[in-house]
Every structure is written in structure tokens, then in C-alpha cells.
């Protein structure tokens, strides 16, 4: 097509060059140029339409390679932690859907990984979302990361640091994995507020997060028995209220509060509150300062599982654990971004009838420093050091550990920037 246009142009030039007076030739040339410009524009418009893959979903992938070393355990591990494939597209004018496949290996610096082990491929998320509901409403259903807490809904490779904070692991169960249905509502106010409510089978990558008991022979068992059938009242209900405040031309404050109750293995009651401050210097290019914190608490009540019942002991019990983190990071140049983090998990307390209050798990504190090198928007190197301390053994009889991580994360394919309150 381009060749045809060039031939047409040459022919037109030859034709007008052999014509009469200068004025006519100039006019003819102007008409030809105008016609050619229209052709070029039409071609470009057609080209643009062809490039939007309306029948093919967007596909993206993340590869997250990590080397970890634990001083206490003396272990060096190489992990492809989070190999993720995401497919998403609009289904029709009313809904879109996405699926996330994940071949995930656990990041456990104090354990020796199996060099011949294979990550298991699984479906991390598969959800349908409405796109055309009125009154600021949207519904999501399927398996998804619930809109619950600040970092629980973030995929591992997108975390600001290499490892997920221990507090999130212990209190929430890691990521906000859930299966169910979620409704969000944006009321028509001048001030930005978002309400979320959902009903799911449970929240968390680990279904029985708190209430792990050590029996007399040292074996760890789940304190609360999972019911064989899920009763209607065992579904977990959750909600989140999120708002954001403009604090001047380059600063935004995010605030959030969450609550959840339900569960099939004891009744879990979760609550959390969080904030995040973003400050971008005016005319500062890539520069961005972030300060964020979150505090979570979880309580589980229920009937003890058979394995957890001590002969003659109580049948009902409750377990409670709290924890949180705070981090700050600064993107000082397009490439460099240092950060620090403090993470605290309080001891888990277990109350079992007349047996009284018993501490069943140790507290854990982690102080971290990390440095990101953003080679491009899709290619990031990270070095992180954790200094971990606790009430009990972390590895090899030591209650402190220094852990070092080197992480290389690459994103492939389509990407988008969601608005996350």
C-alpha cells in the first residue's frame, strides 16, 4: 500500500510538472499532498484498529528469581518463586475476566530447598468482574485476591520487598486468596471513598493460620477441626473501607480499615487498619517517597480438633495473634530506590477453658534494609538484608538470624497501572 502511494505521488508530480502556468502546478501539488495526507492518516487509523487485539486476551507473565542465604541455618537457596501467567480481556460490554496461573515455590531461607524439586502449577486467580453496573457499583466473583488489607492483595513479585512480612503470614495467612463474591461501591461524593463487602469461603493462602498447637509429643496440629460440610453460617463475611486524601500538589494519603468474620475451622475474626503516604516532589520526574504501615489482629474460636484435645482437657478454645509492619522507601533516581522495613508479630495466645492462657508461638521481629535497581519499568534487581530475632529458635538453636536476598524480577507482555486505594 505504501508503494502504491509513492507511485501515485510520483505520477502526480510528473503530471503537474508538465502542466502549464506555475499557479496551476502549485495548486495541483497542494491538492495531491492533501489527498496523500488523507491516505496516510486513513492507513494509520486502520493500522491502529488492527493493533488492538479485540479477540485475543492480554497476556502477561512475571518471572521472579531469588537467591537467599540464612546465616543461622547456613543455607543457600535458589528459587524461581513466582512464575506467573496472567490472561485478561473484556468478555462483552458487561463483564471482563482474568485468570492467573502460578508456578510458585515457597521462599524459606532457613530451609534447604530440593534442587531437583519442581514448582507446582496452579490457578491462583480466576475471576469475572462487571464493567457496566450503575451507581458506582462493581461485582467480582470466582477465585481472587480479596480487596482486604493493604499488602495481602499484592502478588509476591509486586511486593515492595522480597519476602512477605511475617506478620501478614501469621495473622492473615499470607496473600488474600479467597473464593466467593465481592461487591465494591464508589458513592457519588466529592471525597473519594470506596466500600467493599464480600462473602467467601475463607481468606488467606493458609486456611488455618492461627490456632496451630504443639501437642505433648512435639507434633504441630491444627487446633480447630474443619467441618466436613460448610454450613451457611461458616461463610466468611468481610469488608473494607478505603479513602484517600489529597495533601497538596504531590502528596496523597491512603487510609483503610478492614474486618472479617467466619470460617470453617473455628470462627475467625480478622481486623486491620492501614495507611500509606505517597509524596512526589513537584516536577520531580521519577522521584517518589512512600511510607506505609498496617496492623492486623486475628482471633479464632471453636471446638478443638480431636488431635488437639488433651485427655480430660477442654473441648473449646480460642487463639489470638496480632502483628504489623511499617516501611519507607524513596525512588531517588529513575534507577535507585532504597528502603527500610520493620515487622513485628506478637506471641500467639491460646485460651483453653480452665487450662488458662498459654503462649503457643513465639514473637518475631524483622528489621530489613533493601535497595531496588529499576533497570527499566519491566526489569528490577533487588538486594535485601533481614535481621530476624524471636523468642525461640529460628534455626540451629539460634534465636537470631541474618538473611540475605538477591532478587531479579522481570515482567513480560501487556501491563497496566490500576488505581489502588
Amino acid at each position, binding site marked *: 500500500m505504501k508503494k502504491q502511494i509513492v507511485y501515485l505521488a510520483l505520477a502526480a508530480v510528473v503530471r503537474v510538472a508538465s502542466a502549464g502556468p506555475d499557479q496551476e502546478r502549485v495548486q495541483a501539488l497542494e491538492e495531491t499532498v492533501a489527498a496523500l495526507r488523507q491516505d496516510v492518516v486513513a492507513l494509520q487509523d486502520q493500522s491502529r484498529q488492527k493493533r488492538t487485539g479485540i479477540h485475543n486476551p492480554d497476556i502477561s507473565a512475571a518471572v521472579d528469581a531469588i537467591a537467599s542465604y540464612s546465616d543461622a541455618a547456613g543455607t543457600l537457596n535458589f528459587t524461581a518463586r513466582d512464575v506467573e501467567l496472567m490472561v485478561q480481556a473484556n468478555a462483552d460490554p458487561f463483564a471482563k475476566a482474568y485468570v492467573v496461573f502460578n508456578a510458585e515455590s515457597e521462599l524459606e531461607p532457613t530451609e534447604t530447598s530440593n534442587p531437583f524439586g519442581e514448582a507446582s502449577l496452579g490457578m491462583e486467580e480466576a475471576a469475572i468482574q462487571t464493567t457496566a453496573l450503575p451507581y458506582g457499583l462493581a461485582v467480582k466473583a470466582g477465585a481472587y485476591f480479596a480487596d482486604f488489607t493493604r499488602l495481602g492483595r499484592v502478588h509476591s513479585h509486586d511486593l515492595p520487598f522480597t519476602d512477605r512480612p511475617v506478620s501478614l503470614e501469621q495473622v492473615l495467612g499470607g496473600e488474600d486468596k479467597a473464593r466467593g463474591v465481592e461487591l465494591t461501591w464508589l458513592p457519588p461524593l466529592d471525597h473519594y471513598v470506596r466500600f467493599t463487602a464480600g462473602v467467601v469461603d475463607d481468606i488467606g493462602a493458609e486456611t488455618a493460620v492461627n490456632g496451630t498447637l504443639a501437642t505433648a509429643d512435639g507434633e504441630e496440629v491444627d487446633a480447630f477441626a474443619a467441618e466436613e460440610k460448610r454450613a451457611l453460617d461458616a461463610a466468611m463475611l468481610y469488608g473494607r473501607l478505603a479513602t484517600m486524601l489529597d495533601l497538596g500538589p504531590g502528596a496523597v494519603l491512603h487510609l483503610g480499615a478492614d474486618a472479617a468474620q467466619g470460617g470453617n475451622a473455628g470462627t475467625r475474626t480478622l481486623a486491620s487498619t492501614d495507611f500509606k503516604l*505517597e509524596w512526589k516532589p513537584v516536577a520531580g520526574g521519577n522521584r517518589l517517597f512512600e511510607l506505609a504501615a498496617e496492623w492486623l489482629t486475628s482471633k479464632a474460636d471453636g471446638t478443638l480438633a480431636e488431635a488437639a484435645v488433651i485427655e480430660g482437657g477442654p473441648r473449646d478454645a480460642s487463639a489470638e495473634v496480632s502483628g504489623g509492619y511499617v516501611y519507607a522507601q524513596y525512588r531517588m533516581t529513575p534507577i535507585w530506590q532504597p528502603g527500610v522495613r520493620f515487622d513485628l508479630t506478637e506471641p500467639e495466645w491460646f485460651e483453653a477453658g480452665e487450662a488458662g492462657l498459654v503462649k503457643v508461638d513465639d514473637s518475631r521481629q524483622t528489621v530489613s534494609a533493601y535497595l531496588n535497581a529499576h533497570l527499566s*519499568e519491566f526489569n528490577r534487581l533487588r538486594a535485601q538484608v533481614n535481621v530476624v530475632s524471636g523468642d525461640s529458635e529460628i534455626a540451629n538453636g539460634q534465636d537470631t538470624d541474618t538473611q540475605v536476598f538477591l532478587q531479579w524480577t522481570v515482567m513480560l507482555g501487556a501491563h497496566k497501572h490500576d488505581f489502588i486505594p
Partner: protein
Amino acid sequence: MTNPVFGICVGVLLSLGAQAGPLRVVTATRDLADFVQQVGGEHVSVQSLVSGLDDTHNVLMKPSMVTMLARADLFIEMGLDMEHGYAPGLLAESRNHAIQPGAPGFLDASRGIPVLGVPGSLDRGEGDVHAQGNPHWNLDPERAKIAVRNIAAKLAELDSADAAAFAANAERYIAELDARIREWRARLDGKDIRFVSYHAHFAYFAQCFALKEVGTIQPKAGIEPGPRAMAELMARMSREGANLVVRESFFSDRYPKVVAQRTGARLVAVPIQVGGMPGADTYIAMIDMLVTAFAGDQ
């Protein structure tokens, strides 16, 4: 029977969302907001998502942007993926179906604009390429005239009663632009300006004013330069007689200063959007500032 309390609540919420008056227009950039104001006059109220001070590739998404979009009748973007870092996320969160891509209240202002720099292949080995071509057409006032006409047509579509006013305002503004383009070309004529910039922002500006773009400090889009890339750029500048280093106002002057000092080229800082620097308060003022900086008239 309907619960009266429920009915009142629904009524209050609906009334919060409803507002009579001029057409509510939200634009991605202040350049577009200026065009809308010139064309729409008193018949529109217009707000821009970004201030002009920020790199449009790195915009901090703010809650006020969502509420702004939630009530808009029309959203106008530069197009060509210029706003891919913030507009799609904000539009989705606004849940305003009237202004989503494809809806009547959405306008890609770049429609019909001849595009430069359309990549032959879409491979991120070439950097963070814009799949549809270079999106910085706003720095070419000739192409801006096409966007102004696009805006006039869209405003007329949404507010047919004032269509004649929109068309007349657009033609008046385009005539003003034509007069200024003649003046700007006269100021740059014969200057033999050969320049490098930080990012490929000035391809359209160079074409409009017959300037020579020698290269960019970023060796590929979105990639910071290493020592080898810097050395290659300076060698090319020497070979091709580059005499100007242009730093976009939001980029660090670290690399531009080095390049200018080692090559002897003149270094200037310029806006690439309306609002990008003090004094660049309108589109014409912004282009005038650019012409002054390139011509060395300061």
C-alpha cells in the same frame, strides 16, 4: 410498598451525582484543557488531570482525579498510549460508563493526526516503545489544529445547541495559531539548529520547524544511559554538529549538563506541556517559550 427511608436515600444519592450547567470536560493534559477552553468558552467547564509539571509517564494517581472523572460528561486524552500509566486505571475506577473508551463521552484527540515513530516491531528489547507511535504530537502546532477541530466536533456532538459557537471558536483559534506559526518559523529560520533531548519528545516540533534531531540521552525509550551510550551520543553530536542540548523540565540535569559541557553545546530547560514551567500558562505561551529556547533568543 417501597420503604420511604430507602427511597429518600436513593434520591439523595442520585441528586449528589446530578448537576446541571455547562458541559463538564476532563482532559488528560493542560494542553488539551486549553484547547477545550478556547473552543468551548462559556459552554464548558474544564479540568486537567495532570498539572503539566510531571512526566506524563510517571503520574501520581490521586483520589481527586477519580471524583473528577466520575462526574465528567467528556474525557479527552492525547492518545497514542500517552496516558497509559494513569488514565485507564483512573477511568476504570471512576465507574463513569459515559466516558469509557468507545463511549460518546470519550475522545482520543490524536485521531487523524499523522503519526511519527510508529515502531516496525513491538519488542521491549527496543525499550518502552509506544506501540502506536510517538505520542508527543502536542509540540507541533500544525497537528494541534487537527486536535482542536476534533474537540470542536466532539463538543458539538454532545451539545448540538452550541455547535455553531464551537466551530467559530475553533476557526478563530486556528487562525491565531496560523499567525503565530508563521512568526515562530521566521524566528527559527536559518538558525541551523541541531539538538539532542533527554527523551524523544521533540520529533513533531522538529518536523514542524525544520530542525535537526540528532539523538536522545536515553539510548532507548525509558532506559537511562550508561557510559557507552553517553560516549556514542557525544560522538554522534560531534559528527553531526549538534549545537543544542534540550532538557525537559522534569528530568534531572545530571546527564544533560555532562553532555553540554563535553560537547560545547548550549543547554536549555524547556516545558513539554502547558504548565510545565512558569510562564507556560497557555498552549501558545508554551510553544512560544520553546521557540525562544531553541532559537537562543533568551
